[in-house]
C-alpha cells in the first residue's frame, strides 16, 4: 500500500542549514549532508531544501550542497528557491536533486511549468503555492509570502497541474509558524481540485496535526521544519503516532547493522 510521506524541510543560506536545528548528536548542525543522513536514518521519506541565499553571487554554494547531498543520501530530495528558468532546473537535477520546486517564477511566467515538465518530466516539477485566506477562498502570495499575486489559489493549482506540475507543495500563510495545525479546508480544496499529490505545509505542531492533514485534509504528504529541527517530535514518533491511527506510513527501519 502506498504510504503517506513525512518530509522534513531545511532552509539553506549559502550552503548552510539555518533556523537552528538542535540535535545534541550533531557535530555540525549547519551541515546539510549530516542533517540529511540523520533524517534519512530517522525514517524521513523525502527531504526538501529551500535555498534562501539572497545574493546570486553565492549561488554556487547551493550547487555544492546539492551535489554533496546526492553523494551521500539515497532518498528523494527536492530543491526550491532561486529556480527562475529551465537552466536552473537542469543544473539542480544534474547535480542530483530529484525534484525542483518553483513558486514566484511560476507565477511570473507560468510557461516555466510547461517547459520544465516537457524537458524533465512532470515527476520532478513541484509547484509551491503560498496561500492566504481571502474571503471565501485563498489568494496566492509570492516572494516568500510578501507579495499578493491577485490570483485564486485553487484556480492556480488547477492551472499549474494542467501545465504539467507533478506535485503541489501547499503552504498556508495563516497557519505557518503558529504550530496550531494545518489549514485543513485549504488542503482539502486543493486535493479535490487536482489529481496529483499534495504536500501539506505550514502549521504543524505535532503528530495529531499531521494526522488531520492526511485524513481530513486529504494530503498525500506532510512537510514540517521546526517540530523536527527543535527535537519536539522525532520522525519515528510521528510515524508511530500516525500508524496507531491507522494511517499507512513506511515503518522506520531498525538502525543499520552490518
Amino acid at each position, binding site marked *: *500500500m*502506498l*504510504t*503517506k*510521506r513525512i518530509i522534513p524541510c531545511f532552509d539553506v543560506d549559502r550552503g548552510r542549514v539555518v533556523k537552528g536545528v538542535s540535535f545534541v548528536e550533531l557535530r555540525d548542525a549547519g551541515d546539510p549532508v549530516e542533517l540529511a543522513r540523520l533524517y*534519512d536514518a530517522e525514517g524521513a*521519506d523525502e527531504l526538501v531544501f529551500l535555498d534562501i541565499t539572497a545574493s546570486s553571487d553565492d549561488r554556487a554554494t547551493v550547487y555544492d550542497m546539492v551535489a554533496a547531498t*546526492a*553523494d551521500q543520501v*539515497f*532518498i*528523494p530530495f527536492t530543491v526550491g528557491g532561486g529556480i527562475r528558468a529551465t537552466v536552473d532546473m537542469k543544473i539542480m*537535477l*544534474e*547535480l*542530483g536533486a*530529484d525534484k525542483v520546486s518553483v513558486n514566484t517564477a511560476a507565477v511570473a511566467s507560468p510557461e516555466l511549468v510547461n517547459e520544465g515538465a516537457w524537458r*524533465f*518530466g*512532470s*515527476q*520532478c516539477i513541484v509547484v509551491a503555492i503560498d496561500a492566504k485566506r481571502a474571503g471565501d477562498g485563498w489568494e496566492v502570495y509570492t516572494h516568500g509570502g510578501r507579495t499578493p499575486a491577485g490570483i485564486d489559489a485553487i484556480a492556480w493549482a488547477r492551472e499549474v497541474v494542467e501545465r504539467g506540475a*507533478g*506535485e503541489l507543495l501547499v503552504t498556508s500563510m495563516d497557519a505557518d509558524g503558529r504550530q496550531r495545525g494545518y489549514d485543513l479546508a485549504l488542503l482539502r480544496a486543493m486535493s479535490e481540485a487536482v*489529481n*496529483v*499529490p499534495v504536500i501539506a505545509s505550514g502549521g504543524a505542531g505535532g503528530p495529531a496535526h499531521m494526522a488531520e492533514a492526511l485524513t481530513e485534509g486529504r494530503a*498525500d*504528504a506532510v512537510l514540517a521544519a521546526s517540530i523536527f529541527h527543535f527535537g519536539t517530535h522525532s520522525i519515528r514518533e510521528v510515524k508511530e503516532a500516525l500508524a496507531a491511527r491507522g494511517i499507512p506510513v*513506511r*515503518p522506520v*527501519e531498525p538502525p*543499520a*547493522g*552490518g
Partner: protein
Amino acid sequence: MTVARGRAYTGTVSAQPLLVVVDYDAGNLRSVERALAHAGMAATVSADPAELARARGAILPGVGAASDTMAKLRARGLEGPLREFIASGRPFLGVCMGLQALLDRSEEGGGQECLGVLPGEVRHFGFERLKVPHMGWNQVAWTREHPIMAGIADGAWFYFVHSFYPAPADPALTLGETTYGFTFPSVLARGNVAATQFHPEKSGAAGLRLYANFAGWVREAAGA
C-alpha cells in the same frame, strides 16, 4: 548496512568496463552511478556502443516519457547495441523507464513501440479515485527467488514514481508485485534480464542492497 565504496573497476581507458550505466541523457544517471558506488561497484556512465559491447553488465536507468526515451536511444544509436548486449546473456538491469523500454510497447503518448526484449506492454493507471502518478514508498512482495532480491525482506519498501505500469504477457516474468489500486508486477526477471519499476537509487538501504546484489551477479557472471 556497511558497504565499501568504490572498489572494483577504477576507470582507466584501456581497462574493460565491468559495469556500464547506459547514458541517453536520462535525468537520473548520476543518482544511479552514485548509488552503485555506494553499494561497492564503480560504474562507467557511457553512451558509447563499443564500451557497452565490452561491459560485463549493464543498467538502463530512466525517468520521463517512453517516446522520448526510445527517440533518444535511437538517436544515439543504442537500440541495436542494447539488443545485442541483452542477447549475449550478460546481466542487465532496467530501472523505471528502463523497465518499460524492455517491453513490446507502451500506451504512453498514444502508443510507442519499445525494445520488445520482454513480451508484454505498458499501460496507464487510468484511475479516477487514486492519484496518478503513483508517487512515494510502497512495498514489494517477492514471488520467487532471484540473485537481485537476495537478503531483501518480503514486503520491503521502495520509492516509486510512475504513471504507467508493466503488463507482461507471461506471468512467469514477474519477480515482485506491488499494490496501488490493484496488484501489478513491479519487478520483472527472465534469464539475464531483471528490471524494477521503482528507483533503487532512491530507496534507502533496500535499494542499495539491490544494486549490491546486481553488482555481485555481474562479478559472478564475469568470473571476476
